């Protein structure tokens, strides 16, 4: 058992080491959320008055938890998909031939991706004073917990896919056909309760929309913007995390 835990720790440690050593990646990963929030967000918010509506400031506030969620989504997914990269460059075999179980490898990868995603999400959260959104310590740690659940779910999805997909090309396709729709239909950028019916239905099977909803509830505490009760969000997230992690673990162990 101790051996397996060491295995988990080792796989996790490598991901963390690689992360902090990769400075361009760290800087690059902040560029996207900042661009979304302060360029796209501000642009859309100010266009409200053109079309005769108000509430531009409220829109930016609405979008903020969505951007935190977006950061967690992309970071954890790409961290888990680094398995494809490791396979391409041979390092995966060094891990696979080591005397630890496949499950420990998967758990290590899950925790590695989640830790990095939580760190990045937390940094974005620190931008809240710029939008005059008050974040207390309690809120901060609550959001951290939700980020952990979202990151675990998405990392596990990434591992599932990485076990099936063997090429870097397919990886690009996945980004466009899975990740972007998941992001757009998560309620990160616009409210899902006032949108067209089919979008609303699709968003219900998107685990990310529960994560974003939970973050929004905790950060903004505005019942108007809330889709589901917080407890439901958490229950859905925990269930999906467990299911997808087990599936990811099985698929990863099966590959030859």
């Amino acid at each position, binding site marked *: 058992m101790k051996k397996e835990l060491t295995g988990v720790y080792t796989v996790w440690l490598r991901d963390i080491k690689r992360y902090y050593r990769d400075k361009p990646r760290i800087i690059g990963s902040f560029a996207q959320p900042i661009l979304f929030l302060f360029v796209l967000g501000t642009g859309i918010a100010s266009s409200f008055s053109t079309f005769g509506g108000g509430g531009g400031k409220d829109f930016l506030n609405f979008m903020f938890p969505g951007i935190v969620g977006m950061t967690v989504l992309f970071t954890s997914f790409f961290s888990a998909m680094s398995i494809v990269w490791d396979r391409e460059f041979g390092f995966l075999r060094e*891990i696979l031939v080591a005397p630890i179980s496949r499950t420990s490898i998967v758990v290590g990868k899950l925790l590695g991706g989640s830790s990095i995603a939580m760190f990045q999400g937390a940094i974005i959260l620190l931008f809240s004073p710029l939008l005059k959104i008050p974040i207390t310590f309690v809120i901060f740690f609550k959001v951290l917990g939700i980020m952990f659940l979202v990151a675990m779910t998405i990392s596990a999805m990434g591992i599932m896919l990485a076990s099936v997909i063997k090429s870097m090309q397919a990886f690009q396709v996945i980004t466009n056909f899975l990740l972007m729709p998941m992001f757009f239909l998560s309620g990160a950028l616009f409210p899902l309760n006032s949108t067209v019916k089919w979008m609303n239905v699709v968003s219900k099977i998107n685990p990310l929309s529960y994560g974003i909803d939970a973050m929004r509830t905790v950060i903004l505490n505005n019942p108007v913007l809330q889709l589901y009760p917080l407890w439901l969000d958490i229950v859905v997230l925990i269930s999906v995390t467990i299911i997808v992690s087990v599936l990811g673990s099985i698929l990863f162990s099966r590959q030859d």
Partner: protein
Amino acid sequence: MNNVGANNNIIEVKNLVKEFKGLKAVDGITFSVIEDEIFGFLGPNGAGKTTTINIICTLLSKTSGEVTLNGYNVARERNKIRNCIGMVFQDPSLDDRLTALENLHFHGLLYNIPRRILKERSEEVLDMVNLSSRKNNLVMTYSGGMKRRLEIARGLLHYPKILFLDEPTLGLDPQTRNKIWDYIIKLRKSKNITIFLTSHYMEETEICDRIAIIDKGKIIALDTPDNLKKTIGGDIITILSEDNIKLKEYIKEITGSEAHNAKEGKIRFEVKDSSIFIPKFIKNSPVRILSISARKPTLNDVFLDLTGREIREENASARDNIRNRMMGRIRH
């Protein structure tokens, strides 16, 4: 710790078969490796060498057959097997964003080596492959030969009972290749370790105690290098003449054996003692001989004799080059 039976076989493979979509990559092979020997798998690319190794080292499941290593069953006791093997794969398997020492540290943690021992051993294995001075450099900055040396060091870190070396010199220049072999010979002198290696460079496998020649998924010969070479009747003579057909008839008449076509329009055949044979042969030859050479048989000749084909290193290396270039393209 020693689970090897009275017969000293550390690896036993019986009727091993591996099919990929109906294609038999390994076609019912049986062999055993004796403890503390250097055992070689020799054969062209695609013969099934790497597939067999991957099955023995638990990376690939078998279609049928029995494989045991150190007394452990490959299908049921994977982690026990993983604990007592060290691997040097055909393609690099280092994390090039980490330093050499970090790669070893990572390996040590995975194999549960206690920290204070790990430090000592890292120094020991790095010293052995002369990489101590570069231990804190990122592996990215290493040359191909250095990477391979580091992989050998890493494979030894947990003191495995068996070290697998899959084409350890593939893609390296001749000088670096020689160096790698020096390390392997040094290793076998200094440690009680079984070495299982594969190669398609014939001359390199001469250091093995025993060699299995493998072709199209089957073992076609298994013996010591000397015994394998003895199956060829003496020296190899290669001749360029004005009339090969006529000469072949003459050769058959005086030696009783068939001459074969070789490269560049030459013919080749075998005789017991070339130093006595050649002067007599030139004097009595019915056709003019343009060139003649004699040499001791190599394992390449053994392969040629058994299969009628050359191992064709040129083709293999051309393909390796293309692959290396592709890998380079992905990386940049």
